[in-house]
């Protein structure tokens, strides 16, 4: 599986000698092996030209841009290698069929609550008392089948997530007070970590969706058009507990990330460059970690799990094979 490259420096990236070269404002030159790149993440101020874009297009490398306050600012995607009108038609049909949409949305909610629950059970079996949260999550799961429409499902998901966030209060040290999820902008370190981590999960899902012929704007749980790539939001919800949250607990509890890794501004708190590098290093390592897949009978990386999830959805849409969302099994 190809790797993600992250550019924090300011400067310029260009095509040079058949690969990608970064020239920083300090005059340093660094190379990215293009044959080895899945996507390039731009966190700094970077110039580039159209020659680079065509080159990246030829190699199928995506560029994800992060702007002010680490907000996802958009992606430059390679021209679609995969196009399939039939897939898009089926995708829209499934959206338009209330029953099918409901069942897909329910599957997303079920998966994401399951994955939250796995995290809670893990910490509950250690020194923390989280039985109450588990109960609330189970109650939410029980309500999925009774939900009569999408907005009710969204409600179930939101209730579950609110309960789930109590885990953060319990598991994280007092110096990292959480006090509920807030963003735009995140007011404290924990929220900053969640926002940053989730935006990485989101961008990785955009890459995964783009590898298929599915249209990233047509989604089932989230309303299409709410944000640009709403299908990515559907898929990302399944993986946030596995990719962002567990990593966050680990980094804070092992003191790999400390209060010094953030910069505070009026009403907001964001990771500074050192903090982002620490987080991303571990995040990328997590993506590369592998688990034995029960049906494929081989080891797959977490990153490939994102890809598999999109393939499963596509298969469901094209063949009608039932879609069972990703549930952490290990």
């Amino acid at each position, binding site marked *: 599986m190809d790797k993600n*490259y992250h*550019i*924090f420096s300011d400067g310029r990236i260009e095509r040079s*000698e058949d690969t990608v070269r970064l020239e*920083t404002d300090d005059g340093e030159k660094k190379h990215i092996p293009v044959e*080895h790149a899945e996507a390039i993440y731009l966190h700094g101020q970077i110039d580039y030209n159209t020659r680079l874009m065509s080159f990246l297009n030829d190699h199928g490398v995506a560029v994800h841009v992060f702007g002010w306050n680490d907000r996802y600012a958009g992606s430059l995607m390679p021209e679609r290698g995969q196009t399939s009108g039939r897939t898009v038609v089926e995708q829209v049909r499934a959206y338009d069929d209330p029953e099918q949409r409901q069942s897909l949305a329910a599957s997303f909610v079920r998966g994401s609550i399951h994955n939250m629950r796995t995290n809670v059970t893990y910490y509950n079996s250690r020194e923390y008392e989280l039985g109450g949260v588990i109960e609330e999550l189970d109650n939410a799961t029980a309500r999925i089948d009774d939900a009569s429409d999408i907005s009710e499902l969204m409600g179930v998901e939101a209730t579950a997530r609110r309960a789930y966030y109590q885990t953060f209060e319990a598991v994280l040290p007092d110096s990292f007070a959480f006090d509920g999820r807030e963003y735009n902008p995140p007011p404290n370190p924990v929220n900053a970590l969640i926002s940053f981590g989730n935006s990485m999960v989101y961008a990785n899902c955009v890459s995964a969706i783009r590898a298929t012929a599915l249209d990233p704007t047509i989604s089932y749980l989230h309303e299409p058009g709410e944000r640009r790539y709403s299908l990515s939001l559907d898929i990302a919800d399944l993986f946030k507990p596995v990719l962002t949250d567990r990593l966050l607990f680990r980094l804070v509890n092992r003191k790999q990330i400390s209060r010094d890794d953030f910069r505070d501004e009026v009403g907001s708190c964001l990771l500074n460059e050192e903090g982002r590098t620490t987080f991303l*290093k571990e995040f990328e390592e997590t993506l590369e970690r592998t688990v034995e897949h029960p049906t494929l009978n081989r080891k797959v990386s977490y990153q490939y799990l994102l890809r598999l999830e999109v393939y499963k959805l596509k298969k469901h849409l094209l063949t009608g094979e039932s879609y069972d969302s990703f549930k952490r099994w290990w």
Partner: protein
Amino acid sequence: MYVIVVYDMEADRTHLMLKLCRRYLVHVQNSVLEGEISEGDLATLKGEIEDLLQEGESVMVYELSSDRLLNRTVYGDDPTENSRFL
């Protein structure tokens, strides 16, 4: 898999090999590159190396099935460190 590529080229042609290998690997020292590579890419790279080579020049490719098998000690700066965080 993990490979180390070492080459010896005519002085005015070294840049060609560097340019070729840089597409796949990290340049660690004059005439030395290393890094993770897939089997498919390695096969392609080997083919391209062979095409490029002229008489009197040589390239060595050391292969390991995984970087876990490699004991690597670096004195001074490590060019592969942070090669994905620029």
